[in-house]
């Protein structure tokens, strides 16, 4: 069972008539329950790859299967459903709704799944407890520290029981102590719940906590410590 399977994935942007190739053919397989880190210099295409894997963007060419399904065959509604049920996102800048409480922020994915309000709140509360924020339920993002905000974002990513969590530089905006806490959570998520975690990072020590490191440079995979293992 694979979480992601990418074959010859490319993505180019048109900028004032000039074509910028952000990804130049990526072959990558991420198995269910894997814990992998993507590292590479700035502008190498890490975020672009994450967005493609997370179905927030469509590839220029190549094939992408998520949970065995070719995403090119899915319409807007099915893609939304995939993002909602299969994938959880954690962003570098948290992306919480500013005027909304932690509880309602976490419950948001369940709104689009049609879960009734009472159950939404129960599940959101459980998710916030899992990240150690049961005392911050009614706080707004502006009333929380960066580390707390990112933990709310992680709670939001796991509230819908996804198969994978995609985290683009989840520790990028945090100091080392809060960064370590976030990494602990992601590790636990992977170890205890069997959720595949794919994260992007600049920091070697963060990347080394993952079981597999994928090095990206100039839109290509330069080196992959675990690719052959999972393919075998």
């Amino acid at each position, binding site marked *: 069972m694979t979480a992601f399977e990418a074959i010859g994935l490319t993505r180019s942007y048109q900028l004032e008539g000039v074509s910028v190739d952000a990804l130049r053919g990526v072959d990558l397989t991420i198995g269910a329950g894997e814990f992998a880190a993507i590292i590479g210099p700035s502008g190498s295409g890490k975020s672009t790859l994450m967005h493609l894997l997370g179905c927030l963007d469509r590839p220029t060419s190549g094939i992408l299967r998520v949970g065995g399904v070719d995403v090119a065959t899915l319409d807007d*509604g099915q893609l*939304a459903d995939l993002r*909602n049920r299969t994938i959880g*996102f954690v962003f570098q800048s948290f*992306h919480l*709704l500013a005027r909304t409480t932690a509880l309602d922020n976490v419950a948001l994915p369940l709104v689009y*799944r049609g879960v009734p309000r009472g159950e939404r709140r129960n599940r959101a509360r459980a998710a916030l407890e899992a990240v150690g924020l049961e005392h911050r339920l009614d706080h707004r993002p502006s009333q929380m520290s960066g580390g707390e905000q990112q933990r709310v974002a992680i709670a*939001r990513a796991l509230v819908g029981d996804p198969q994978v969590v995609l985290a683009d530089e989840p520790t990028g905006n945090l100091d080392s102590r809060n960064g370590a806490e976030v990494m602990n959570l992601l590790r636990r998520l992977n170890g205890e719940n069997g959720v595949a975690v794919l994260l992007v990072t600049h920091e070697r020590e963060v990347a080394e906590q993952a079981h597999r490191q994928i090095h990206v440079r100039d839109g290509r995979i330069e080196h992959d410590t675990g690719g052959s293992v999972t393919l075998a």
Partner: protein
Amino acid sequence: MRMALEALRVNRLRSALTMLGVIIGVSAVVILVAIGTGAKDAIEREIAGLGSNIILVVPGQLNFAAAPTQSRLDLGDVAYIRRVVGDPTRVTVSVQSGETIRVGRQEAFVTVVGTDQYVPNVFDRPLRRGRYLSETDVDTRRRVVILGSEVAARLYGDVDPIGRQATISGVRFRVIGVYETVGATFGVARDQEVHVPVTTAQRLIGVARINGIGIGASGPDEIEPLRERVVDALVQRYPGEKFSAVTQTQLLGTIGSVLGMLTGVLAAIAGISLLVGGVGVSNIMLVSVRERTKEIGLRKALGARQRDILGQFLIEAVLLTTIGGVLGILLGVGGSLLIQALSPVPASITLWSVALAFGVSAGVGVFFGVAPARRAGRLDPVVALRAE
């Protein structure tokens, strides 16, 4: 729905200002339609207040609120019309002149109407006291007078005027009756009239003519044939002359359509302001979509479909306009009642204008909300998330 309310609450001032356009538009529709309808109702009531099934015959072209400049009709013609109609009791006559009436030191300028004993058969003109003119009064040219209610109050105050003397243009009259208050018709203040026998009036004014003939048809179905018969008969008697015979139905029809058109024009003008309010809503929604691009991107990343986002913004727009619509209706109804109470302009709130204004404001929300909402729904999640 909760989210939409929340979003509107967050930008309270902006929402309020946007609503203002809708509020003004809707209340303008309600008020202007109320005034138009009220004016129409009032005039229709005036016309209906004359009596029922009345045909008014005047020489030449009909001219409200003013005596015709020349008239060749006289009492002989009235007798002729009585034969044409077949029932003399359903035909009455009028000759008018403005004169001064005096009692002691009290004076009033009134319209002296010379008429006959058939007034109550044709017009709705109830007496408060005393009696109507009689055949003998007319035949013997008696100097008797029936006072309009305002004239009676002016000259006699609380004293019962029946049997008392009044002087019209130097001639002494005896008061035999006082009419009930009936109000005005086309600016003719009928409570400021006094009625005297037509024969007496002709001598007093010094004319042999009459100004008009009033005919009461026996029922609504008789009005039109009778009108044609009378006009034909007069034209036959005076070839080449013009006579007008108008019925209440005609008056109601003409005035109704004129006022209906006026109301329509007023409503259209108000509708345009509502439309302008709608453009404001559209504008604000576009700003809101741009401002919340990041939020939209996030929602999409978390599994919102295009139509979830579209629905969210559409609900916001519709909520904005319907709240504005309800407030506008309240303001419009309040304004109409205020106008009604504080000015002589009659206002009558109609359900259809309220319903229409509400429907249109909700429609405006949908119509002007769709474009921004679609734009929001179609935003590319990556682009939206990167937006700052």
